[in-house]
């Protein structure tokens, strides 16, 4: 199935630390390192143990986002409700609005991982015409 039925709450690790320290964090196997800002890193899936060379780093479980994986065949449908042009490079990461809702998007060869603030998930599901939550 190319289009997900709904978004699910994401389990991840959030690290805010000195940018140099974040540069050294290694990606988990099959996971993603998403650099939200120079001092802000999202690690998917969550890390059991994190070594960050910054004694003042804030390392927290992150459950404030919902996520859904869209097949690349869905790209045009998502682009049609976006005021900004999606990057063409793969992999790539971008932040903006989708159907008027703030999102973070991870562009992979096979598709797109869309992250949305959990508190706004229902709006995005409705605006993308996704199925009713069970």
């Amino acid at each position, binding site marked *: 199935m190319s289009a997900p039925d709904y978004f699910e*709450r994401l389990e991840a690790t959030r690290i805010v630390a000195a940018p140099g320290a974040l540069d050294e964090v290694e990606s988990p196997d099959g996971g993603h390192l998403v650099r939200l800002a120079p001092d802000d890193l999202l690690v998917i899936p969550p890390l059991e143990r994190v070594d960050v060379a910054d004694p*003042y780093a*804030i390392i927290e479980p992150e459950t404030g986002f919902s996520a859904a994986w869209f097949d690349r065949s869905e790209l045009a449908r998502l682009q049609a409700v976006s*005021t900004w042009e999606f990057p063409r490079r793969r992999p790539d990461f971008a932040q903006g609005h989708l159907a*008027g809702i703030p999102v973070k998007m991870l562009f992979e060869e096979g598709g797109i991982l869309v992250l949305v603030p959990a508190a706004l998930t229902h709006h995005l599901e409705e605006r993308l015409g996704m199925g009713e939550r069970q």
Partner: protein
Amino acid sequence: MIDFDGTPVPFEEGDTVLTAVLRAGLWPWRGCLCAEGDCPYCLVTLGGVSYVRACRTPAAEGLRVESHPSDGYPSLPSSTRASTRDSAVGFEMIHCDTVVIGQGRSGRKAAAEAEERGRSVVALDARVGREAVGVYAGPEVVARTPDGMLRIFCEEVVVATGSVEVQPVCPGNQLAGILTRRAAEGLAASGVDLGRVVSVGAGPDGIHHEPARGRLVRFEGEGSVQRVVTVDDNTGVERTYPCDTAVIGLGSGPRDTLARMAHGSPGVRSVGSAAGDLDRPPVPEAGVVCPCSGVTVDDLRSVWDRGFHELELIKRSTLAGTGPCQGAVCMPHVRSFVAAGGQELPPSFTARPVVTQITMGEAAAGWYHHADRRTALHEEHLALGAFMERSGGWLRPWTYGDADREYWAVRAGVSICDVSTLGKVLVSGPDAEGFLERIYPATIAPLRPGQAKYVLVLDERGYVFDDGLVCREDASRFLLTSTSAGAGYFEMWLRDCAEGWEMDVRILDRTASWGAINVTGPRSGDLLSRLGAPDLLPSFMGHTDMEVAGVACRVMRMSFTGEISYELHHQASRSRELWRALLESGADLDVWPHGIEVLEELRLEKGHILVGVDSLPDSTPRRLGHGWAVRMDKGDFVGRRAVARTSRMDLDRLLVGLEMDGAPPPRGAILRVEGAYAGFVTSSTWSRVLGRSVMLAWMNARDGGFADDVLIDGRPARRVAVPFYDPEGLRVRA
């Protein structure tokens, strides 16, 4: 067949409604028809939608068309609230390199050149139903299509919309039977019988016509034109030309409205006739100049004589150019009129979207309503019958249906409340303590790990814009809370301060990630002891990390309700599990949630302010009665100099507590002292536990003091100290 005002009208493939109607021998429109979407004359109503141009509407089987009334405006369609969602206009956002508006010769050439350069091109042309209606900065083009609206984001816009023909201004120009030159050529080619044709100016190609010699003076006829009258300016002799149709060839000007919307923005350019110059018509002497607004040459003279000599002022004072055709008919003549008065003509106005009439549905297509956030407990609230209300950008439970039960659960037993919306920000770093000392007017350094403190947040003017708690975790790490509505701004403001002061701190907003449930009431400790470790529960204004019902929580003991309260901050993914455990374990304690309706009542009984409700944009701590929250014997903090300066001034108004018998007055109710205005109520409630109404109100100083007795809505109220309930605070510290 189409139905035109009840008359069946046949049509041919490719016909517009205009062509079909005129070919059928009907001529229901007055004025000089352009047949190109510029003039305001062929407006009709289609399916309840008015201001649709017949010349831009393809004829289709069964189409029901109504002409606009000759006087006045078409009636508004009847409103139905049902199925608006199903009838929503479609929309799509497109990204490309170049948009070419208009597919005449210049437009096709521009599109081909762009494609040769490897650019992606979107071509629009109103004649084929893809009509650009607005050009915005970006550039961005908004277009209407049969499938809905397009928002096109691009790097370049090429306006190739051609030219608009100059219309005649003279007595009789509102008669039927007048066509522009291009309209006549197109209609004749489509088989419309124009009868005896007289041309004024450049004559039409391919149509047998009699050229009228001399300067156009007027059209004559009963309802439709029957004679064209000209004059020989050398001899002053008039000549009359009998006709069925008058064809006008007075030149043209650029159809540049879309280009003028861009107002010189980079990336927008005109080509071909759209970039050409106007063939300025003769100075109008009589007749209707602006048919949309009914402005005559006499009207122009009238405003001119009153001193309106600039184009923009004439437009505003007469409304010429503000109607459905957006000046396509009148502006060339108004410019000639102004120039004849010796005024220097400015460039054409910046045009405003939209260039043609669109429906409300088309204007709204692709735009969304405000997105209210939901907490992780939203479904739990609904399951308990909550009525949800918007508050601070969130949907929150206003009540669960029985405010009395909710209230007494807090005051006499135990209750829970979803306070996940509170702002929550972590700050860590070697400069964290010093950073917060500069942020807050309270002292931070004395706080020990596990302790919390109430703080105000001031701006540079010393005005309160938020409040919350500072909780110390360790020497270099703090948790800050803020109001729900202020959370987003508060976090940005902290970042801005940290960067501006070059302080070494890390900042992470946890508002969305952490849920928070307030367990409150005299039996709140009993409930938590069943779900956690009672020995670890913090004392008043303390906090600790512990598990509650197996969920890792930061338990913060403070009180907004006036009873013992524990806020359980936790990962939002565990909120529902924790909420259900509290309800299940407290069933025999009659635990019941309360909504924000009751929370308002509870906090008001304690005299707690709500920033943004009880405060005003210029509320200083002293005006709020919160001078105790500011320490002037510490180092610099945001707003310090303003607080020092204003504290030397007399207090002009004060947020006070008032009580009265009977029902509470509404927010905003006026305070009067000896008949004079003395302030207004900011919050009010009937206190179930006190048996009287209590309120907070702004009171103006009078003779250097504040009145003890006031009238509110004609009823007496007394000024009293706050808190109204448990003034010693014994209950929250129990």
